[in-house]
C-alpha cells in the first residue's frame, strides 16, 4: 500500500536482531563444526568422516538412539492418546488437576528426571527389585514420563476442536462407541497424532540429560556420545562428525514434522461443545487418575530421598545446600548456583522472548508476493533448527568457535544466557505464532478506515491480543531455561554454574551426603520449574501451545 520498499525495510529491521544472534551464535558455530568434521586438517577429508562412522561404537550409538526414540514414541502414544480423549473431550470434576499433572513432567529438568528414575530403580531403591537400573527400559520409561504430555496436549487440543456431529451420525447409524472412535475420530486425529509423534521422536532422539544419568556410560545416544567424545576423549573431530549426523537426522524429522503441521485442519473456534462424562467414561477416568498417580511417583521418590539422612528423617540435606558438598565437590554452594540459575534464566528469557516476538511478527505476516512467502517459509525452518539440532550441539559449537579474539566470548557471562535463549527460541515462537496468525486482518483494516494509522492499528489489535501468549511464552521460556542442561554444561564456568550442572556434579562425585544434597537440590529445581508452569496454567493467561 505505502511503498513496497518501506514494507521490505520493516521486515528486514524486524529480522535483523534475531538473524544476527542466530547467525553469530548458531549458524557460524554449526558451519565451523561441519568444517571440523569434514576437513579436520584444513582440506576436505571425508576419510575422517567415514572412519568415525565406521567405528562399532558409533554404530551402536546410532542404533540405540533410533531404537530408544522409536520405543519411547510408540509407548508415549499408547499412553497419551486415551488421555487426550478423556481429558479433552469430556468434562468432569477434577479434570483440570489431572491435565496439570499430566503436563507438568514436560517442563521438569532432564537431570532431575534422570536422577529421580535412578533413585527409584537402583538396587536398594523402592523399585530396585525390577532390576531395571542401567537398562534401556529405564531410559524409555523416563522418556515416556516426559512425552506423554505432548500427545495428551496436542491430540487433546485437536480433539477438543473437532465437531462431534460426525461421531453423532455414526452412533445414530448403530456404531458402538469403540467402533466410532476407531473409524471416525481416530482418522480425523491422524494429522495431530503424526505431528505429536514426530515432535516426540525428535525430543527423544536428542535427549541428553536423562540418557547421561541413566545410561551409565554403557547406553548412549548421539547426544551423549558427542559429550563424551568432547569431554573424555578430547576427540573434537569425532564430536563434529557426530553432530553432523545428528543434524541430518534432525532436519529430516523437522521436515516431516513440518509437513504434518501444515496439513492439520483448521480449528473452528467455539463450535464444539464438550459433553459431560457419563458412567461409560468412568473406566477412562480411572485410567487417567492411575497415569497421573504414576507420573507423581518419580518425584515423590526424590522428595523421600532428599529427606532421608543418616540419622533418620530430616532436613539436613536442605541445610547442606548452603555448603559446597562433601569434600568440597563444588566450587560454589548450591544456593549460589540457584541464584546463578535465576539470573541466567531471566536474562535468557528476556532475550528469547524479544527475539521470538520479532520472528513471530515476521512469520505471521501474509505477503502478497511469492518471494515474500518463500522468505517466510525459510525463516520458519531456520528458527526451528536450534530446537532440533539440540542443546549439546549448540553448546559445543559455541565452545569451539568463539574462542579467538575478538570473539572470545567464552569468558563473557553473556554466553550462557544466549545459548539458553537459542534453545528456548523455538518454543517461544511456536507459542506466539498460532495466536498472532489467527488474528483476523479485517480487525486491523476496520480500524484503519476509522482513522488509525498502521502502527496504531497494529498496537490496538495484534499487540493487545498477543499480550497473553507473550506472557505464557515467557513463563515457558523461563522454566525451560532454568532446567536447561545440554548447552549449559559445556559453557558454564564452575564458579558460575547453574543448578542443573551442580546437581550433575554432585551425582558424579562420591559421598552419600552428596547424593542427598543432589536430591534436595533437584526437589528445589523441580518445585521452581513446575511452580512456574502451574502458575501459568492456573492464571488463565492461556496455554503455551509450544507443540
Amino acid at each position, binding site marked *: 500500500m505505502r511503498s513496497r520498499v518501506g514494507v521490505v525495510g520493516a521486515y528486514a529491521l524486524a529480522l535483523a536482531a534475531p538473524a544476527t544472534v542466530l547467525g553469530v551464535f548458531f549458524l557460524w558455530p554449526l558451519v565451523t563444526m561441519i568444517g571440523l568434521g569434514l576437513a579436520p586438517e584444513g582440506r576436505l577429508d571425508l576419510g575422517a568422516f567415514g572412519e568415525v562412522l565406521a567405528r562399532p561404537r558409533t554404530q551402536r550409538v546410532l542404533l540405540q538412539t533410533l531404537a530408544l526414540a522409536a520405543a519411547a514414541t510408540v509407548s508415549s502414544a499408547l499412553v497419551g492418546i486415551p488421555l487426550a480423549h478423556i481429558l479433552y473431550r469430556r468434562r468432569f470434576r477434577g479434570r483440570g488437576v489431572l491435565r496439570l499433572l499430566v503436563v507438568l513432567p514436560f517442563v521438569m529438568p532432564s537431570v532431575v528426571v534422570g536422577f529421580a528414575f535412578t533413585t527409584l530403580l537402583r538396587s536398594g531403591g523402592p523399585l530396585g527389585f525390577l532390576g531395571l537400573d542401567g537398562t534401556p527400559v529405564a531410559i524409555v520409561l523416563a522418556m515416556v514420563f516426559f512425552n506423554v504430555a505432548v500427545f495428551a496436549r496436542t491430540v487433546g487440543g485437536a480433539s477438543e476442536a473437532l465437531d462431534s456431529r460426525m461421531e453423532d451420525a455414526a452412533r445414530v447409524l448403530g456404531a458402538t462407541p469403540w467402533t466410532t472412535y476407531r473409524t471416525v475420530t481416530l482418522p480425523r486425529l491422524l494429522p495431530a497424532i503424526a505431528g505429536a509423534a514426530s515432535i516426540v521422536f525428535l525430543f527423544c532422539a536428542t535427549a541428553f540429560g536423562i540418557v547421561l544419568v541413566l545410561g551409565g556410560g554403557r547406553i548412549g545416544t548421539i547426544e551423549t556420545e558427542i559429550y563424551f567424545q568432547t569431554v573424555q576423549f578430547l576427540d573434537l573431530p569425532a564430536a563434529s562428525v557426530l553432530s553432523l549426523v545428528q543434524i541430518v537426522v534432525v532436519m529430516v524429522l523437522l521436515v516431516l514434522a513440518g509437513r504434518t503441521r501444515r496439513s492439520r485442519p483448521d480449528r473452528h473456534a467455539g463450535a464444539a461443545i464438550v459433553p459431560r462424562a457419563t458412567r461409560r467414561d468412568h473406566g477412562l477416568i480411572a485410567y487417567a487418575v492411575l497415569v497421573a498417580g504414576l507420573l507423581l511417583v518419580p518425584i515423590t521418590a526424590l522428595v523421600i530421598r532428599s529427606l532421608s539422612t543418616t540419622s533418620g528423617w530430616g532436613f539436613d540435606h536442605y541445610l547442606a545446600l548452603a555448603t559446597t558438598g562433601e569434600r568440597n565437590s563444588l566450587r560454589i554452594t548450591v544456593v549460589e548456583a540457584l541464584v546463578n540459575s535465576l539470573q541466567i534464566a531471566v536474562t535468557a528469557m528476556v532475550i528469547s522472548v524479544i527475539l521470538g516476538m520479532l520472528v513471530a511478527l515476521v512469520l505471521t505476516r501474509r505477503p*502478497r508476493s*511469492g518471494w515474500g512467502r518463500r522468505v517466510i517459509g525459510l525463516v520458519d525452518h531456520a528458527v526451528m533448527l536450534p530446537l532440533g539440532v539440540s542443546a549439546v550441539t549448540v553448546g559445543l559449537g559455541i565452545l569451539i568457535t568463539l574462542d579467538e579474539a575478538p570473539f572470545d566470548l567464552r569468558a563473557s557471562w553473556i554466553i550462557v544466557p544466549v545459548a539458553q535463549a537459542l534453545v528456548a527460541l523455538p518454543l517461544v515462537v511456536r507459542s506466539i505464532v498460532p495466536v498472532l496468525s489467527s488474528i483476523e486482518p479485517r*480487525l486491523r*483494516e476496520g480500524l484503519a*478506515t*476509522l*482513522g488509525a494509522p*498502521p502502527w496504531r492499528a497494529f498496537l490496538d489489535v495484534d499487540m493487545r491480543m498477543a499480550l497473553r501468549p507473550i506472557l505464557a511464552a515467557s513463563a515457558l521460556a523461563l522454566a525451560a531455561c532454568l532446567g536447561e542442561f545440554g548447552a549449559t554444561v559445556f559453557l558454564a564456568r564452575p564458579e558460575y554454574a547453574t543448578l542443573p550442572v551442580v546437581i550433575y556434579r554432585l551425582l558424579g562425585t562420591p559421598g552419600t551426603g552428596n547424593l542427598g544434597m543432589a536430591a534436595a537440590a533437584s526437589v528445589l529445581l523441580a518445585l521452581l520449574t513446575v511452580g512456574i508452569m502451574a502458575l501459568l496454567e492456573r492464571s488463565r493467561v492461556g496455554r503455551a501451545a509450544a507443540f
Partner: protein
Amino acid sequence: MVNGDTATHEASDPRARGLSVRGLKVVYPTDRGAPSVVAIDAIDLDVAPGERVALLGPSGSGKSTLLRTIAGLETPEAGTITWDGVDQHDVPAHRRGFPLMFQDGQLLPHRDVAGNVGYALHIARKPRAEIAERVAELLELVGLAGFEHRRIHTLSGGQQQRIALARALATEPRLLLLDEPLSALDAPLRTRLGADVRRILDERGLGAIVVTHDADEAELLANRSIFLPIGGHAGPPIQDLRH
C-alpha cells in the same frame, strides 16, 4: 501504484463533488510467473454526495475488492479515485474518511461497546467527557441506548452491526462503505436494520456504497444499483431498477 498511462490527476475541481472513480484496475500477484489475477478492470464509478449506490454482483465479481480499494486498503494498478476533485492515491486509508463496515462487525473484543464506538474519537485525542457524550448520542441513534458497558461477545449479530454502524458514524465520515452489511442476519432483522440504516443515512445526507450479492439488500439500502459481473467490468448502470 497508479499507472501513469491512464491517470488523469485532476486538480481541485469545484464542480466535481463526491466520489469519482476512473479506469480503476486492481491486480493480485500470483506465484512463480503465473499470470496475475485481474480483480477489477477499467471501472468507472460516480457517487454524488448523499447518494447511496449498491454494487451488485456474484462472488468473484471483484465488488469487495473495489470497495477495499476505495477505502485505501488495496493499491490499484491503474486508474484514479478522487473525492471532491482531490486525487486520493497518496492519501492513506486512515486519512480518507471512508469507514468500512463488514458483514460481521469486526469489533474489538477486548473493549466494551463504548470503547468500540468511541474508538475514532479516542484516536483523535478528544476529551473524555466529549467522547462519552458523543457515544451516548450515537448509541441512542442506533437504538442501543445504555449499552456503553456491555461486552462485545454478549451482543447478538444485529446488535453488533448497529455498534459497527455507530462506530463508523463517530468519524463524521464523508462516505460510508458497507460490505454485505445485512447478509449475516435473518430476514426480519435484515428488514428492520436495513430500514434503520437507510433512515440514518438519509437524515445526515450521508452517501454510501453498499456491496452485496442480494438484490433485496440493494433495493433496501440504495437509490441506485450498478451490476458487476464476474471479471470485474462494470456493466451499464441499471437505471431502471427503481427503489
